[in-house]
């Protein structure tokens, strides 16, 4: 009966919400919107002899992005990221689900184990993998000692090494969101599925997976998107032999001193992320319908 006061209080709540959001909005503006704007402007510019950006309009950078070479590199990066994501889902789902089904004390212990690697620098951990995978490294040493193989396996500086490195780097980002979805999964629904005659496969596919889908989708985004742009692992473990889009962009800013072209690649790359995100979102909407 008191519409004025009601709308007043809701407006006040709105104001407060905005105030609470302010730090995040400032952060987003300063570190996302502004840099993206700079990238967009640079991508239409040219460079001078030294590599400085010259503000003269040009489409040339975008024309070059769609050169078959760079498209092939884009494609390859996406393929590597996709393989990484699939392996991460396959390996991460059981782990996340298992942890979520333990007692609270055990759960925290297991989660700690997932987090511990983050205490060490990412690069140091990547170098550790080199020690394991190199020709006279731990893995080959063990396999040869146990007479499983006679000659050392050639793993370092191959695509396999890159995939191992990528899966290792991003697996926690798959486990954690799946864990948080699985934790919220109501066991009564799984039991109900069994009671209604669904076998383990059917109840997994039709009850458990749809209910934990938000976690899987979040994990897929967290793994797939950064894996496309990763350049340190492809350099260190792949020997920089096969160019990935992350390496190509990095090269534009350093070796080639061609910032506008690097910016154009970055813009297209970001659009690609946006599209893949939109697709996953749509998928989620379908699931809900």
């Amino acid at each position: 009966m008191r519409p004025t006061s009601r709308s007043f209080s809701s407006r006040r709540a709105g104001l407060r919400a905005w105030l609470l959001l302010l730090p995040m909005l400032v952060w987003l503006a300063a570190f996302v919107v502004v840099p993206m704007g700079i990238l967009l402007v640079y991508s239409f510019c040219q460079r001078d002899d030294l590599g400085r950006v010259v503000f003269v309009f040009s489409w040339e950078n975008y024309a070059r992005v769609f050169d078959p070479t760079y498209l092939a590199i884009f494609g390859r990066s996406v393929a590597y990221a996709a393989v990484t994501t699939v392996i991460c889902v396959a390996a991460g789902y059981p782990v996340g689900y298992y942890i979520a089904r333990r007692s609270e004390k055990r759960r925290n212990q297991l989660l700690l184990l997932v987090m511990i690697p983050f205490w060490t620098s990412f690069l140091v951990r990547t170098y550790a993998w080199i020690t394991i995978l190199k020709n006279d490294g731990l893995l080959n040493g063990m396999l040869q000692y146990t007479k499983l193989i006679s000659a050392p396996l050639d793993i370092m500086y191959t695509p396999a090494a890159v995939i191992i490195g990528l899966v290792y780097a991003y697996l926690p980002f798959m486990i954690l969101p799946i864990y948080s979805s699985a934790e919220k999964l109501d066991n009564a629904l799984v039991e109900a599925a069994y009671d209604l005659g669904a076998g383990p496969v059917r109840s997994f596919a039709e009850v458990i997976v749809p209910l934990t889908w938000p976690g899987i989708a979040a994990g897929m985004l967290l793994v797939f998107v950064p894996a496309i742009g990763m350049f340190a692992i492809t350099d260190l473990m792949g020997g920089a032999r096969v160019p990935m889009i992350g390496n190509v962009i990095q090269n534009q800013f350093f070796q080639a001193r061609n910032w506008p072209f690097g910016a154009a690649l970055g813009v297209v790359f970001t659009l690609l992320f946006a599209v893949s995100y939109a697709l996953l979102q749509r998928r989620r909407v379908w699931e809900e319908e």
Partner: protein
Amino acid sequence: MKTLHRILALVALLGALVGTLRAANKELNLFAWSEYIPQEVIDGFTKETGVKVNYETFASGEEMLSKMLAGGTAYDIIQPPDYVAEALIRASLLAPIDYAKLSNFKNILPEFLKMPHDPTQEYTVPYMTGTVGIVVNTEKVKEPIHGFKDVFTPAHANRIVVVNDNREIVSWALQTLGIEANDLTPENLEKAKPVLAEWVKLIKVYDSDSPKTALLNGEVDLGVVWSGEAALLYKENPKFQYVLPVEGAHQFVDLLAIPQQSKNRLAAHQFIDYILRPEVSKKISEAFPYTNPNGEARKLLTDAERGNPASYPPVGKLGTFRHIGKISQAIDALMTDLKNAR
């Protein structure tokens, strides 16, 4: 009350910030190659002068140039390679050096003065020099290796490491064709392309930071690497022999220079003079055995260090890289294309 506390804290924070800004003339912003200046040497300077050194590193001359042009930190000392210094001098981005303040500058050997990158010797001081050459693991490779043509043969497929530096790699291909390394024209790149296409198929690892690692680990048996890396390998095990390619080699000179935007030129001169001291320069040579342009420092080295064929190869004067401008983007496109096609 709480608000008051917060305001006080903020004021204190601002005070601290101003304090740091004031201390700027007690600080030196050094921008140098990674793995090139021993920490001991930097600590020694701070101990003597009280000037704190902020040591930031880069992995390629181009990276240094990019970051410097982008602004941000006002570097007091940079360590550009010869051709980057040439570009910086042309663009008037370096401050002239007051050689009168450098009592140890006389230690630099005359062949490293007035080089093509700084013909009037106004802006730079040589830090270390070196060559790019071939390392052979003679236990694994029995046939004699004289030049690039012996390295890049199908028999050595997947057994080669090279520095991850497109301009270097392209210059080697040019030299095998008898073209001068600095003659980087679109036509010459076209000529180098088929040669490079074959090479790219054979190379196992590209690594500029530590190409010696793949050789030490036994992943590869041959390398085309910086001479300092080769010298460390030789020190580790003399089976790693260093060969200057017969097709032609070039030397590089890494320099110390003071950018125009430096706010602490006095300390920058002090630091350069400190580096030029024979006993300091000797320490650098011990850690990173490149060719030391400091004649007095060379006298302090052991016979073994002076006899390391990678540090002091028996050659006369070699040419250096020159500034190349926009063709760098064609070089990058060429190598990306070839690596992609493999």
